[in-house]
């Protein structure tokens, strides 16, 4: 212990400083510096020179500024984007915009079909992916034997989370649209999007389950709880806020997806709302895509209006995630 401190003081006084360029302290001041480790009576005594202390502070401040700058860049970019969109699209926003179907005549066009399609998609995707994802996470964390198969599955899930969404579109086209003959239906789309976000939900849920301290499980088992009771009554309630947050964030990704739905052949011009999971559909991002690809300025404005609605949906979802998380934290 003593030798260790001695070594440290030594390293600080010799190597550390002489190597550093710009060390302009006069040598005299250096010799007066105590060579021994700081005495226990002066808790804040340090073998560092004031110059070094200042340097450390400047480095700290520099890093602080760098982080602040990155944050500002993000916020400014978002602000510019939003003002642009709002300037263009705010005029479009009224009840008629929400209650009219798409139309070739810009003045009459609205997003009723797309909004309804998006909500259908959201509900179905949530209903499919949440139980599957959480179930898979529970199995992998709590039940799966720690074998190479489990490890292989785990690695694959992590990889799947990084697969481009268009690839899921291809899979959905082959599997759901063709093989299961679901056609270009809401259900086929929701299944495809569920596949897309499943890895994210599984990973987030696993993370949340793993974050529950082992001492809680031990306590439950020690009181004679079965595995399922420990899981249901202690582990899952503690993991739930994390699971819900992960799921909602994954769902908001699904709501914004376009490519896989184009792939499975979702329509981009729809003048009806789906009445069942087997109906055809379009979604907001597709509607937006369709409108911006038209030459007329009016359609560009319609697209901006639709973007605002889409953003509102996403913000609502994120707000819901935060609310759910806070509610659960308070109950603890």
């Amino acid at each position, binding site marked *: 212990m003593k030798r260790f401190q001695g070594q440290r003081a030594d390293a600080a006084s010799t190597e550390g400083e002489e190597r550093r360029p710009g060390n302009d302290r006069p040598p005299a001041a250096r010799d007066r510096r105590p060579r021994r480790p700081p005495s226990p009576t002066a808790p804040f005594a340090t073998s560092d020179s004031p110059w070094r202390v200042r340097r450390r502070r400047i480095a700290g401040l520099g890093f602080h500024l760098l982080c602040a700058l990155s944050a500002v860049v993000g916020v400014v970019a978002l602000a510019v984007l939003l003002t642009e969109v709002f300037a263009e699209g705010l005029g479009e926003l009224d009840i008629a915009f929400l209650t009219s179907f798409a139309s070739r005549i810009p003045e009459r066009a609205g997003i009723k079909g797309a909004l309804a399609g998006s909500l259908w998609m959201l509900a179905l995707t949530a209903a499919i992916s949440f139980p599957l994802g959480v179930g898979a996470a529970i199995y992998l964390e709590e039940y799966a034997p720690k074998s190479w198969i489990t490890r292989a599955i785990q690695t694959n899930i992590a990889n799947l989370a990084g697969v481009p969404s268009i690839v899921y579109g291809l899979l959905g086209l082959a599997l759901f649209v063709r093989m299961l003959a679901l056609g270009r239906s809401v259900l086929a789309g929701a299944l495809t999007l569920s596949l897309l976000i499943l890895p994210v939900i599984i990973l987030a849920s696993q993370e949340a389950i793993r974050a529950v*301290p082992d001492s*809680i499980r031990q306590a*439950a088992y*020690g*009181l*004679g*709880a079965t595995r399922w009771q420990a899981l249901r*009554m202690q582990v899952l309630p503690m993991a739930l806020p994390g699971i819900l947050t992960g799921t909602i964030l994954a769902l908001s990704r699904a709501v914004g997806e376009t490519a896989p739905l184009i792939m499975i052949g979702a329509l981009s011009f729809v003048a009806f709302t789906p009445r069942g999971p087997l109906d055809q559909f379009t979604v907001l991002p597709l509607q937006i895509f369709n409108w911006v690809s038209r030459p007329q300025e009016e359609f560009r404005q319609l697209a901006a209006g639709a973007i605002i609605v889409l953003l509102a949906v996403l913000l609502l979802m994120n707000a819901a995630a935060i609310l759910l998380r806070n509610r659960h934290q308070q109950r*603890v």
Partner: protein
Amino acid sequence: MATTHNIDTRGSAPALEAHNLSVFYAANQAVKNVSLVVPTHKVVALIGPSGCGKSTLLRCFNRMNDLVLDARIEGEVLFHGQNLYDREIDPVEVRRRIGMVFQKPNPFPKSVYDNTAFGPRVQGYHGDMDALVEDSLRAAALWEEVSDRLGDSAYTLSGGQQQRLCIARTLAVKPEVVLMDEPASALDPVATQKIEDLIWELKQRYTIVIVTHNMQQAARISDYTAFLYMGELIEYGSTDTIFTNPTEERTEAYVTGRFG
């Protein structure tokens, strides 16, 4: 090598008996061929240097080692003459009869009431839960301090109160044996004193096996003391004998603080 250590159990039947018990973590043997008898309604202290296998041995008594991956157990633990490791024995049932209190207080992030009621609930208790909760909290000498805040989160209690809550929660399932792994190691002297008084009380109705690093504590609260060293049971006997007149050189060295 230690095989059987006979203690004088006249006047009280054995609650737990370990016979040639060995525990392996993968290739590492943490408990080596230990045999000992825990008499009913007595306090048995397990002492020994860190890493000697006290916790591992303790966990064998209510099959908590089942939860440790790649832990392997040889030998047997008899509870009323029944081997806890028999194929037809349900570990959940074992833990319902043999409770455990851990080193660090580990209350659930729930109210004081729900913490205490958890055990009875999972075991399908249908009686008067309020009364059971109150009884258990009283038995753990905590009732006076928490009777007006049963709905508060257990996390708002002090460390010592949390540990007594964990004891109360264990008592609520009415076990026959209570295993305690250094229950007072995270507590200050006052809280420790309360836990020790409590153990003294509980001994009337429960059989207690306690792991402790504190020699004085072992001497104060236990009837029998087992000294483990590197997974072996070096010596087991009445606490008086172990602390004043041990047979083994190493036991004497350890209890007098010369090594460990």
